């Protein structure tokens, strides 16, 4: 170990393992995490994967596909069932590379679980979990993003055949951006405006087959492809999708909350927000991801700043460690404290999400608006802060921070899209603000406010 770094470790006033325990839910979970990481680290096949920074975009997609398939097989062999274990294992193989199976294992599977009836879950979930089908989630359109009510894709119910007919009626209605839509997925949950009995009943989720499972050609009426080079996310084939009179059976509409009967009668859900459960889940998890990305950037910058010496503070006394300069501390320590703040907030919002979802399963929807508002706002604030501060960490490493060898570019291009995906940040903050205005109104009327808003009643003004 570099003596400068060792000296730093020697003079610490606490044992770092105590912080590790706090962040990873105690000694047992930490041991489990390290064990799983060591399985991946010592994997001989892993050593054969090519160095990420030297690959072209096409090679990165292919290499990542190989890794994902290998990981999926290994996860099965190792018998991992807990999503946290699987996440840790996969991260060691594909850290900050993202994955062509990412949406399949998150949005696709989770929306099926949350929005499907028991029959639908029994049919689709085993297929998804065994990778017999590969799916993604297509909501965003070329001309429509965060304002989901503006989506144009249509699903018109035909009671004669008991099918939905899906169409992309305009150029702007083409589904655009969904991860793994371009070349990887063969099924997709499409969010479309439902029309039945001559009326539009708003957005609903539909399972749409995209590709022939034998030869992987797109099915008739399906035009699908990759959207091209992006800022990062090279391993993911973000795609576009144009639908022309695609017929799917009535059972392919996810009907846990809203329903369409055989003769075309629409039955409303208890709460319109239930449709956005998938997005709330992803937003809840983004905060922790941002905390992790920023903590990695801080790790790089702070260790480097302890090793790098630059300029004499006192002439003749030798070059100082750059971490001893107050200006360097002012760049890095606020970022470090922000990383910790968002790691804790990420844990808290994930726990809140799991609790609220468990309540929803019991029919209690009371906390959903609070979760929706907080997850939107936290996602926005954490992604803004992480993007900005990762860049600060990079610049704090001088010229070496610009090299791919620093590790910063890979982290940055994986974290910064969080500012725009799953809802553009300003729009999300305005959603949070609308909720705050409702709470203000309730407060003025003397109503009791949710816990996180109780300060509105307390404060004067």
């Amino acid at each position, binding site marked *: 170990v*570099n003596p400068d770094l060792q000296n730093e470790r020697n003079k610490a*006033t606490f044992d770092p393992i105590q912080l590790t325990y*706090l962040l990873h839910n105690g000694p047992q979970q930490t041991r489990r995490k390290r064990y799983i990481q060591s399985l991946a680290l010592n994997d001989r096949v892993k050593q054969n994967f090519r160095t990420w920074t030297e690959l072209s975009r096409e090679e990165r997609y292919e290499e990542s596909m190989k890794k994902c398939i290998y990981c999926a097989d290994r996860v099965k062999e190792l018998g991992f069932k807990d999503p946290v274990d699987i996440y840790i294992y996969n991260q060691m193989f594909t850290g900050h590379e993202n994955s062509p199976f990412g949406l399949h294992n998150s949005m696709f599977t989770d929306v099926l679980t949350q929005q499907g009836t028991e029959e639908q879950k029994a049919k689709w979930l085993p297929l998804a979990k065994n990778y017999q089908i590969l799916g993604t989630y297509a909501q965003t359109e070329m001309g429509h993003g965060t304002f989901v009510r503006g989506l144009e894709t249509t699903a018109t119910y035909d009671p004669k055949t008991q099918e939905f007919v899906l169409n992309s009626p305009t150029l702007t209605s083409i589904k655009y951006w969904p991860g793994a839509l371009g070349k990887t997925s063969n099924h997709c949950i499409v969010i479309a405006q439902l029309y039945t009995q001559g009326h539009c009943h708003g957005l609903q989720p539909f399972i749409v087959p995209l590709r022939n499972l034998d030869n992987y050609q797109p099915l008739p009426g399906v035009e699908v492809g990759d959207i091209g080079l992006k800022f990062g996310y090279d391993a993911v084939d973000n795609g576009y999708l144009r639908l022309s009179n695609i017929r799917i059976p009535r059972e392919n509409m996810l009907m846990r909350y809203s329903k369409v009967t055989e003769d075309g009668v629409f039955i409303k859900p208890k709460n319109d927000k239930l449709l956005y459960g998938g997005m709330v889940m992803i937003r809840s998890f983004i905060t922790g991801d941002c905390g992790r990305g920023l903590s990695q950037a801080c*790790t790089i910058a702070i260790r480097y700043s302890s090793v790098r010496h630059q300029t004499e503070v006192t002439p003749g006394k030798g070059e100082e460690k750059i971490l001893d300069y107050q200006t360097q501390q002012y760049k890095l*320590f606020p970022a470090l*404290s922000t990383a910790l703040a968002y790691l804790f907030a990420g844990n808290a919002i994930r726990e809140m999400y799991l609790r609220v979802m468990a309540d929803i399963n019991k029919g209690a929807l009371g906390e959903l608006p609070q979760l929706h508002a907080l997850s939107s706002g936290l996602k926005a604030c954490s992604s803004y802060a992480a993007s900005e501060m990762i860049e600060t960490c990079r610049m704090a490493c001088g010229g*070496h921070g610009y090299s791919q060898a620093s590790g910063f570019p*890979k982290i940055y291009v994986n974290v910064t899209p969080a500012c725009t995906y799953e809802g553009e940040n300003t729009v999300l903050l305005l959603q949070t603000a609308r909720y705050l205005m409702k709470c203000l109104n309730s407060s003025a009327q003397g109503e009791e406010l949710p816990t996180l808003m109780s300060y509105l009643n307390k404060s004067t*003004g």
Partner: protein
Amino acid sequence: GKTSTITDRLSLRSLVEAFEHRAARLIRECGSRIQTLTSRGMKPDVALNSTSVQLVKAATAHVECCVVKIFVNEVERKDVNPQLKPVLQAMCQLYTVYLLLQNSGEFMQDGFVTGQQVEVLNSKLLDLLSEIRPNAVAIVDGFDIPDAMLASALGRFDGQVYEALYQYARNSKLNKTEVSDAYYKHLKPFLDR
């Protein structure tokens, strides 16, 4: 007329109170502006759009207030190791003081935080940098991120940065040959010209 209780002790309660006050004030200001605009005949949706810059500030203040509270809860957990507790407390203070100073106008606007208190906070921020300095490496070690995941020559656990940078340079694809193909194709004809 209410003012903050922040002193140079930087009690976490006083910091939370400041964040709550700022969020509540900004939320109320938005509500008040929307009410004024609609009472002048503006449609509610238009009034909302005409207040959107302030609404974003209010939402940000609310979220930051929630994050501060979550952080404080973690510091105050009973099962936190006694050696770690002061380190976490300093990190929490730094997070809140830094945010507060970045947005000092929003805390000072109605006189809740005074100019004198901001002066104290500026000085405390610099003290906190010195306080955290000896533990900075231990804190990032505590994140427990394996080198393979960092994939960084600069952030290696062993600190052998320069060896790693040198190896990385030697492995560049451009170094596979001593003279690059581009020399023969383009540079040589140019130099010969």
